[in-house]
């Protein structure tokens, strides 16, 4: 079977991920899963939304969320690498770590947690859109809309768990609270969308 350029790109990406060449691999993978779900939501709105007045609006929003999640995948990788580098430098330092450096380290680690929080919120929005689409698109693509719902929920949950395990984010912290709320919204919408299956 011929291999298309996009298959090759995807295969290269998976090899990079497997080899540990993508920093912050879990955040990257969760954002990518959310982006795939958003892509499915665009597809069902475009191809199964005949007669549904909101289908073009759903496609436009899902397309925006797809691009946003791709961008967040890159941002997550960069933020993780920056925090990792600072942590490495701190552990190798021979002299005591200064207070200023301590703050810089905490800021970098916190910034690394802000990205998965945004991934969780964005993925939860994908769940909302895909669930709405599942109620309104033609039966032929409803299963795809529900697949998008489940995939996006997994993305939101995974990203929220990454915020929770961050070294400097406490459980009552705003980042953690928002990420958990996004995951809860995603869960609730998925349960409701899939209830009648």
């Amino acid at each position, binding site marked *: 079977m011929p291999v298309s350029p996009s298959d090759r790109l995807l295969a290269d990406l998976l090899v990079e991920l497997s080899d540990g060449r993508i920093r912050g691999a879990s955040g990257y993978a969760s954002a990518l899963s959310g982006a795939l779900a958003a892509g499915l939501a665009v597809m069902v709105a475009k191809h199964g939304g005949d007669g549904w007045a*909101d289908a*073009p*609006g759903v496609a436009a929003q899902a397309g*925006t969320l797809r691009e946003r999640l791709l961008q967040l995948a890159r941002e997550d990788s960069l933020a993780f690498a920056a925090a990792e580098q600072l942590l490495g430098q701190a552990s190798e330092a021979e002299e005591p770590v200064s207070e200023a450096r301590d703050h810089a380290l905490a800021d970098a680690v916190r910034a690394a947690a802000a990205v998965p929080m945004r991934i969780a*919120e964005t993925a939860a*929005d994908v769940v909302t859109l895909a669930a709405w689409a599942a109620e309104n698109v033609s039966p032929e693509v409803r299963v795809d809309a529900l697949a998008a719902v489940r995939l996006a929920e997994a993305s939101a949950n995974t990203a929220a768990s990454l915020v929770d395990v961050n070294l400097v984010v406490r459980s009552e912290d705003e980042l953690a609270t*928002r990420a958990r709320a996004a995951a809860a919204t995603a869960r609730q919408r998925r349960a409701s969308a899939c209830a009648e299956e």
Partner: protein
Amino acid sequence: MIGEPDSAAKDARIVRRCRAGDAEAWNELVVRFSRYVLAIATQAYRLPQHDAEDLFQEVFSRVYSQLHTLRDDTAIRPWIGQLTRRLAIDRLRRASNREAPTEILPEEASPDAELERIDLALDIHEAMAGLPPHCQEILDRFFARDESYVQIADALELAAGTIASRISRCLTRMRSMLESR
């Protein structure tokens, strides 16, 4: 595209006033097309900021001296767009003759797709201005400020579950406005 019915009629009125020597109309013309000219210079042809500013001056100086050659007043936007492109390419050619051959050339900048994108962005910008304030606000928050549904709901004191449908309805209104141009 911008330059059709309402928008083109308004362009033509400004051009007529410019021809009649109305100084205020010249200011309006510059304000109306400044974003367009700068967008072509910096986004389509990737000119550095200082070159883009020089080009901006050159374009409007030519518009001032050559406006009498414009045959159709409603075609002022494509005329200014064409003039800007031509002058940007001249500028890039001069730069590529002076500097190393690795400098960006117009072909490498592949500006056509970028120009289409700029035209579309300007169309959308104009259509946005014609929408009711609540639509402008919600579309801006979602598409330009990258806010989530929850953030938008909190800021506008709306139920989070209604945000996606509100955005969708506002997009429908904007699409109707763009189609009726």
